[in-house]
Every structure is written in structure tokens, then in C-alpha cells.
């Protein structure tokens, strides 16, 4: 399963997409995200499975409703 990884540099800043990774479950996704992307100093970090993202619209395809 592909997970997208998000983080921010400081409190209050918007979340920024910083990459993705392959993991079989949430537990390993968290570990892999930390171990892969912790080189920089982050305020917080989040992962979410890509297949849980819901498209709203896309300029080429139009509205996804």
C-alpha cells in the first residue's frame, strides 16, 4: 500500500507533502516515514494511505462529484 507523508516545520504552518512510501500497514508506515524523512527537523509528521484520498476536482477531468 502507498502512503503519502506530510510534515511541517513549525507549529501553525500548513502541512506540506514531503513524499511517499510503501508499507503493508499503518504501524510500519509510521516507522518508515520517520526513518526515511527525519533527516530534517520537523515539528510534526503524518502519514495517510493514498487510496483514502478523495478527489474533489481536477482541471482536466472536471468535478469528481
Amino acid at each position, binding site marked *: 500500500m502507498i502512503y503519502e507523508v506530510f510534515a511541517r516545520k513549525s507549529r501553525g504552518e500548513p502541512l506540506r507533502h514531503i513524499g511517499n*512510501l*510503501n*508499507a*503493508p*500497514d499503518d*504501524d*510500519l508506515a*509510521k*516507522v*518508515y516515514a*520517520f*526513518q*526515511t524523512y*527525519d533527516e530534517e527537523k520537523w515539528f510534526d509528521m503524518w502519514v495517510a494511505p493514498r487510496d483514502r484520498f478523495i478527489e474533489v476536482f481536477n482541471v482536466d477531468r472536471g468535478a469528481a462529484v
Partner: protein
Amino acid sequence: MMTATNVSEAAKAAALPDAVRAAVRDLILVLADSKRLLGTRYAEWILGAPELEAGIACASMSQDEWGHGRLLYALLRDFGDEVDRIEHGRDPAEYRSMGVLDAPPASWPELVALNALADLALTVQLEALRGSSYLPLRQRVQKLLEEEQFHAAHGAAWLRRLGRGGGPARDAAATAVRGLLSAVLQWFGPDSASARALLEAGIVDAAGSSLRARYLERAAALLGELDADDALTGVENDFSRFDEASRRVSGTAPDPATIARVRGDKNRAFLMD
């Protein structure tokens, strides 16, 4: 459990009670060598892990362990040691790393077992130093433990994954775990006079069988992932050939090829400065 009384803090090794100074140095060297070797075992799996992310995790964990080893070796200067000789000038027989790190793991489940069980043993030992009366250790332990959280999470998540996989994956993990357990439990050592002295001086807040009990509690959850909880019962600790200072079975040593790489033998000659 014994509780420490009249403990005085020591900012320097020279201020430690004479009765424990050598044992504190022994413990630091045991931890430093074990972390150097564990980091080496992780590094061997940067290539060859079952997925890229697991290889990256091994790179990250080896970097952490080598960093911890460095920091612990540096503490030995306070005990009059020449740190460069400690890091680069010792024979395999002088290493005090955990016996289960002597040979490279032959398969990924064996590496996972080391990650989950040997790394956990080092963490449990470090936790016992959190409030140490030897201040240079106390001041450094917390940062090490924070980094260890993700090592533990990696080991646990992988054991769970192998357990969930069933069949040969679970069998290989269960065999690897069973193969390590008694040696890791023995590593905490006997309830000896020297263990008691460390407790009484407030260097550690648990030693020997009380540390082993803390470890068993944590390990039980991990073994549950593999339905191998039974491995925890009836483990006999035989200390007849156990050397307390090195926490090793007398007469054993890590494999020479590993130590040659750890010391950097082949390429030390290029240090011309």
C-alpha cells in the same frame, strides 16, 4: 527489590565510590560495544532487506546505534581510557558486545529478531540508568532512549507482519526469536555482589533478575505476535561460564571478520594525518 540509600551523585568518574568505579566502566563498555556491533548488523541489511523502506530503516537504525556507541565510548575518557585505542585497537576477544551479535544474522527474520529482542535488552538496560547517580550517563540516556522508540516500533511491526504472514514467515521468525531468548535473558547477569553494589550506589535502579523481569514483561507482547509466548516460560539462566565484566560467556568472541570491518583495519593506513 533493593532501594538505594544515601546515594551521592558523581559528576566525574573520580567521584564514584571505589567499589563501583570499575563496574560502571564495564557497563559503559558493554553498552558501547553492543551498540557498535548492533549498528553493524543493521548496516549489513541496508542492501538485501525485503523492501527498500526496510533497507532505509536499517540505515537509519545503524546510524543511531553507531552514534550511541560513539557517545558511550567518549564517556570512557573520564575513566582514564584512551578512546581511540578502545575503538580501533582491540582484538575480538576484548569486545564486550552481546553474544547474540557475534555472527551476522543469516536471514531477514533473524535480523528482525535481533531488532525486536536484542535492541530491546539494550533499551531496558539504558532505562535503568535514567536516574543514575553517575551524571554523565544520566544526562545522555534520555536522548538515546528517544531514538530507540522507533527501533522498537520497527521490530514490533515486523514481528507482527511476519506473524500475520503465517506459514514459513511465522515459523522462521518464531525460530529466530527462540534462538535468541535465553542468551539475551542471561545477558542481564546474575544477582551478584557487583550488581548489588551498582544498585546501592544508585548507578542503576534495577540489575540482574529485576532487570530480567522488566525485560520479560516487554518481550511477552512481542512473542505473542508469533504465538510463541511459551518460549518465555521455564528459561533457566546458567551463569557458570558467564563473565560479569563483559556480560559474555567466557571464551567466546565476535567473529574476527566483523571486528576487522568495525575497526576499519583495511583502510586505517590511509589516515595520513
